[in-house]
């Protein structure tokens, strides 16, 4: 019988439709992890079915979801507490964590108990892929207040004393449970729909900071209104070595004891293809073949804040005269040997310069340019610093800026600019008055000179005298 109702199932409920909560865990970034899953596998909690291996068994609490997927997967529908009836699994996948496993029919289990329950379903030597939301993640730091969803019927998670808080605490808890962690991935920009997974060791690799910044800022474009732009916060987190600690979520690849030591050939020892080591060099770190260097945006901002305008011109000119002129500065690495390495395809140079102008003006930087009228105006100046003249019509319109911080900054800027505009207006008024006076006097003199011969002679004499005195 498929789906098999194991008890605790919710008859009028779907996690996958996204109407009662954040929807399933999803995103192409997860595919390499799930593709590498082997053995008898249980996938617990809401996951995008398109990502799952065809022979996996699903554990879903909502009957609507269970029936929808029953023709594609073996499905167990109900509470994880009823799993004990099944033999333990080679691999358990719970990328959504433990918070959406329990049914409304049962009391909400403390994290600790839910974890033990899931772990009991894993055979010794088996592999656990566990996701975990970070309640101090960047996604929460920039979020505006929201209403609780239908799925948060017992919204205690952040205050659950048994739930390990912080990356170090989670790792310690997994180890205490006899698990060996072979990989820790940080998920950005959200735990439910990560656009990228980066190995925690890569995040801590100073040499590859530029690559990490580019990937994280590229993955962190806000889609909703936010307090502040998460891209800048992500870059600052990388700079301070805090990116793993402030990641919106983590995914742990862990092996239950007794397990053979993890290696590249072990089942479940999965890692995204883009961070796999390129060769057998001694430095076999999870940083893999991620290139080293800094982003051009980082270098440009550094030169701008340092007020090193010559360096800024050199960087801009090298960028804008290269084939990568259309690659946004935040997605362009400058390698230690000063080569450009594009991480995204090139657009137009105007769009790339404009993107940097927006980053400068909306990032709250004390930049060196005096009173730019806006990103388009600054774009023209940046091009000019590279020695180029741009067609203003080719500059794209400014994208919407949803950050609340930007709104406050705009309010303060407009207040200041209005005061300055009024001061200039007063200055122009005074200047016009002075010139009116000078014009009137000049016209009076002209009128006088054009009418009388003696006056003309007198003026000629005066001019001659002035010339004599001066020379």
């Amino acid at each position: 019988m498929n789906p098999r109702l194991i008890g605790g199932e919710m008859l009028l409920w779907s996690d996958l439709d996204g109407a009662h909560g954040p929807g399933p865990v999803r995103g192409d970034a997860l595919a390499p992890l799930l593709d590498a899953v082997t053995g008898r596998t249980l996938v617990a909690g809401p996951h995008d079915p398109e990502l799952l291996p065809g022979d996996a068994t699903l554990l879903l609490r909502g009957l609507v979801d269970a029936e929808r997927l029953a023709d594609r997967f073996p499905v167990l529908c109900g509470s994880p507490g009823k799993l004990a009836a099944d033999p333990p699994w080679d691999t358990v996948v719970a990328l959504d964590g433990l918070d959406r496993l329990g049914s409304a029919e049962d009391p909400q289990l403390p994290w600790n108990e839910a974890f033990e329950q899931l772990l009991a379903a894993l055979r010794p030597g088996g592999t656990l892929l566990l996701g975990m939301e970070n309640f101090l993640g960047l996604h929460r730091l920039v979020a505006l207040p929201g209403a609780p969803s239908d799925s948060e019927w017992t919204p205690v998670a952040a205050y659950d004393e048994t739930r390990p808080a912080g990356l170090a605490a989670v790792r310690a808890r997994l180890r205490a449970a006899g698990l060996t962690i072979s990989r820790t991935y940080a998920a950005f920009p959200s735990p439910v729909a990560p656009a990228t997974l980066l190995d925690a060791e890569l995040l801590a690799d100073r040499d590859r900071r530029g690559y990490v910044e580019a990937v994280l800022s590229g993955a962190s474009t806000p889609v909703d209104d936010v307090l502040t732009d998460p891209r800048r916060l992500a870059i600052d987190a990388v700079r301070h070595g805090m990116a793993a600690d402030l990641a919106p979520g983590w995914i742990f690849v862990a092996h239950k004891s007794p397990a053979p030591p993890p290696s590249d050939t072990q089942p479940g020892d999965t890692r995204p293809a883009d961070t796999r080591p390129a060769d057998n060099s001694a430095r076999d770190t999870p940083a893999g073949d991620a290139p080293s260097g800094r982003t051009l945006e980082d270098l440009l901002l550094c030169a701008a804040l340092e007020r090193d305008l010559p360096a800024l011109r050199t960087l801009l000119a090298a960028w804008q005269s290269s084939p990568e002129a259309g690659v946004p500065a935040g997605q362009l690495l400058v390698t230690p040997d000063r080569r450009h390495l594009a991480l995204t395809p090139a657009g137009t140079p105007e769009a790339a310069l404009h993107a940097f102008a927006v980053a400068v003006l909306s990032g709250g930087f004390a930049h060196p340019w005096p009173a730019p009228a806006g990103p388009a105006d600054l774009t023209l100046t940046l091009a000019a610093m590279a020695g180029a003249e741009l067609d203003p019509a080719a500059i794209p319109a400014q994208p919407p800026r949803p950050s609340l911080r930007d709104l406050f900054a705009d309010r303060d800027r407009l207040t200041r600019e209005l005061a300055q505009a009024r001061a200039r207006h007063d200055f122009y008024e005074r200047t016009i008055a002075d010139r009116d006076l000078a014009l009137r006097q000049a016209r009076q003199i002209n009128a006088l000179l054009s009418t009388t011969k003696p006056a003309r002679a007198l003026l000629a004499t005066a001019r001659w005298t002035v010339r004599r005195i001066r020379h």
Partner: protein
Amino acid sequence: MHHANHYYGHSHVLARYCGLPGADPPRIRGYLQHGWNIGDGLAADHEFVDGTPVLLWSERTRRRAWSLGRRETYVVGAPWAYLLEMQPDPGAEREGTIWYPFHGWEGQHVLGDHGRLIDQITATEPGPVTVCLYWQEFRDPSVRRRYAEAGFRVICHGYRGGQWQDLDPQFLDRQLAEQRRHRRVASNRLCSAVFYGVLAGCEPAVYGDPMTLENESMTYGGQARIRRQWPELHGEQVELAAARATVTAELGADRLLPAAELRRVLGWAAPQPASAASPARVAQPASVAR
């Protein structure tokens, strides 16, 4: 914006560098620093409208201006440095010293003993001396005569101009031609002319009674502070490499803008295609010495 932008033909030089007609420069969107300055780069007696860009010569002045509350600043370098960029030194033979006695500006007077200064110049300078007077002093025959009778050649570079009257677009060209005739540049106060001379290839010297300027402001520390801050430019003989490094920085000659950027900063439109060819490197007609 401000009429002082046209002092000494500064705006004219920048217009030429930008590939625009040098005879009639457009209005500059901002205040252009018009002399070497130990304050915020602006003249104390000029009206300042908040929010207007302040275009400064050096990074040091910009830092100081920022500390004094100026925000909309940008380092463009001195017009003099742009002039030299357009007119490379032809390498003609140099001789003697061009000496700039400290002067007041329009409406100011200097109090001091010119006789003693003349004696000191005579005793110090190894070669022929050209004394360059500000136009106020130059038009006073008694002052001119005094220096001439000491055996000095007496010249004047021209008018500073003001309020759009007596503008002198060739002022800096004449000054450059004169300085390039001389091996040394000297004054009794560290001033723009000494900085200019060093950039034009002269060896600097600052010595003698600095004299007193009527109603001189001591806000930024006056002469005592200048001697403390820039000792490498003071003395009858100075260490040339150190002096040149300081001068390059003070005139912003190490950070000149490309013509396209300068036009953007000044608020000037690009030149018409006919006159747009390599504006920064267009050879200028040789300046005429007076």
